[in-house]
């Protein structure tokens, strides 16, 4: 099991997940959208393929706490 800290522009949530789950599944559990957002796992930007890869495949070890962010940058933002 791992602890995933899901952060979006407006929400912060903790989700306990299995390493065999994917970031996409965790976003679904957290009711967080990724449409038009830049998604990163511990600061590493995830591609569309990575979103459907398991945490294990993304190099996350059992017992770890990871940050999964989905950030939408509004026009003009840097």
């Amino acid at each position, binding site marked *: *099991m*791992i*602890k995933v800290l899901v952060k979006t522009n407006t929400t912060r*949530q*903790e*989700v*306990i997940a*299995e390493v*065999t789950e994917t970031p996409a599944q965790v976003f679904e559990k957290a009711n967080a959208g990724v449409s038009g957002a830049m998604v990163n796992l511990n600061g590493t930007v995830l591609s569309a393929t990575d979103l459907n890869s398991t945490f294990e495949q993304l190099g996350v070890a*059992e*017992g770890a706490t990871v940050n999964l962010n989905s950030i939408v940058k509004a026009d003009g933002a840097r």
Partner: protein
Amino acid sequence: MKLTITGDAYALTSTIKVDEIELLKKYNPDALSVKDKDGNVKFKVSYSEGKGSITPYGVTFGGKGRGESDGCATVTGTLPAGLSTDEAKKYVAELVGGVVAYLEQLEKDVTKAAEAVSTQRKKLIDGITVA
């Protein structure tokens, strides 16, 4: 819940059956977790064949017990080399110390939840009319 040390390996055997976990994963996954007052999951149990682990956030069982604990969910791991009996016991106690309370709570609830799901399914199946 039972803890066993044999040679350089330890095993945690739960009273929860693997079949109960599989059933609840499919029909009532919430029953496999402990939540706080706000509804956030604090701890959960799961089963993944051959990939057992014990972490502060949950226990993933990786195997099935045999003999008197036939079908019960187990996690097996190895002990560091060179530990005395007391050191080995302390190592295992350290490893599972944080999960015991949650696991014992789930052991009480999971079996009841699995029985409820089984009863409901049986009722549903019995009620199906084959024309």
